[in-house]
């Protein structure tokens, strides 16, 4: 299914990530997944939160660049070959994966996936039973 992801631009310096979590904590936003892509100078923090619009507003008020991005949130079974199967489907449909992150627990793994065509990806994955 298509979900909203919170994406944030921050400088790669001590304490910067803390400012983000402080602002989200003060706004009573709950974080359920997080991933950071970093360069030497800056990073992009990606999060799944319970209220993306509220989070973007809180961060903007704190002077931080933040936006809401459409991503796929797919639950794959925690068995060998299931991510492979998902990628075969996406590759077959000519869809590029920019990044993904996730973690397995209790037999299944919710994966956050950023692709070149979110709607088409949701459709083809749904066709092979991945939602």
């Amino acid at each position: 299914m298509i979900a909203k992801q919170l994406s944030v631009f921050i400088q790669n310096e001590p304490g910067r990530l803390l400012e983000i979590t402080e602002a989200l904590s003060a706004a009573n936003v709950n974080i359920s997944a997080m991933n950071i892509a970093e360069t030497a100078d800056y990073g992009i923090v990606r999060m799944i939160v319970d209220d993306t619009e509220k989070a973007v507003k809180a961060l903007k008020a704190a002077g931080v660049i933040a936006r809401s991005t459409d991503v796929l949130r797919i639950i794959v079974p925690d068995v060998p070959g299931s991510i492979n199967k998902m990628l075969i489907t996406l590759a077959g449909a000519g869809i590029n994966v920019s990044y993904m992150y996730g973690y397995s627990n209790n037999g299944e793994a919710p994966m956050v996936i950023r692709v070149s065509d979110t709607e088409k990806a949701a459709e083809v994955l749904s066709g092979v039973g991945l939602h």
Partner: protein
Amino acid sequence: MIWNVPVETMSRDEMHHLQSERLKDTVSRVYQRVDFYRRKMQELGVEPGDIHTIDDIVKLPFTTKKDLRDNYPFGLCSVPQSEFVRIHASSGTTGKPTAVPHSRKDLDLFAECVARSICCAGGTQEDTVQVSYGYGLFTGGLGLHDGASRLGAGVIPASSGNTRNQLTLMRDFRPTILACTPSYAMYLAESLADEGYGPDDIALRIGIFGAEPWSAEMRSKIEKGLGITAHDIYGLSEIMGPGVSCSCQMQNGLHIAEDHFYPEILNPDTLEQEADGVVGELTFTHLTKEAMPLLRYRTRDLTSLDHSPCQCGRTNVRMGRIIGRSDDMLIIRGVNVFPSQIESVLLEVPEASPNYLIVVDRQGVLDTIEVQVEIDDKYFTDELVEMENIRKKIKQKIDNVLRIGVIVRLVEPKTIERSQGKAKRVIDKRSI
């Protein structure tokens, strides 16, 4: 409207004659009264009698900022302190400030020249001017204040700083002209938008900006943000302050009050006069100043002159925009770099904001130049590849213009310090 029609539309011959007479008078005055100039002229073997026309100015000695410091505070004055009615001082970035005293007549001419400038920019006595230059030793605030008063316009003496309050004044008192530094105008435009307002919420129609170099691209951003036509005003405290020159409605150069300040463009290496259109160091000679007349004062500002007639009707010579300062010039790996070149590139890249900081350092024997650029939040994406493409695009454009490799760092918006006066754009960490 032209403020002083006889002088501002004078024929070139008449101007040549007026300048010649005034130069002769000034030279004999400083020769008699100022030890520094008498000594310098004697070293060059020149006497006041050798000056017949303004063209003989090339025989005269130069004056530099160092000469002003060496003769601090009043060593170059040609009247006693009892005749000073105001003393301005230029910011002393290195060591002592430079004192610039004015006689009653000097201040009168200051107001006259600023009134000419405001008219040149399209202002009239119907206008209200918000003066957001600093009031005090800096000539910007009081200079614009006196000039606007001379014109008969209304004045809001806001001075610089307290941005929120500036915006409130702008919305409530409805000034039609804003006078400040271009970087502060940019900041005011940004802050106006941040508070949820736009050009329709204020009544400004003209901006009169000076005291630091700015690019054409920055001008169009300020014009859009504040809903104004922006004009360049030029001046320096050693010569007078703002009002030495100002751009007219043709927006094709700044008319110099050359009946008071005689401009020359010099080749920075040979110190010989350059022809119209050639960029060199702007040099001024006072033709009427009483308290502290200077001969051939080297401003370090780089520009060119144009003596051709202007469609606005004024015949006074025009100078181009200041493209940099000969002492702002950074020499990096042997290449001359002007901060204004980097600014021009950034203003062409929509993803970057025109707020930048240049950090020059040396690693081993190699100079490094880093350009910190604030990213415009409209162009932020969650994909690292896209962000790196923006960074590479900015780097390539700057590299192409400077012809040396720079390091580009993307930083968060509003993290580079905003200035309320002259913007600090360069940090040079090299210890030489």
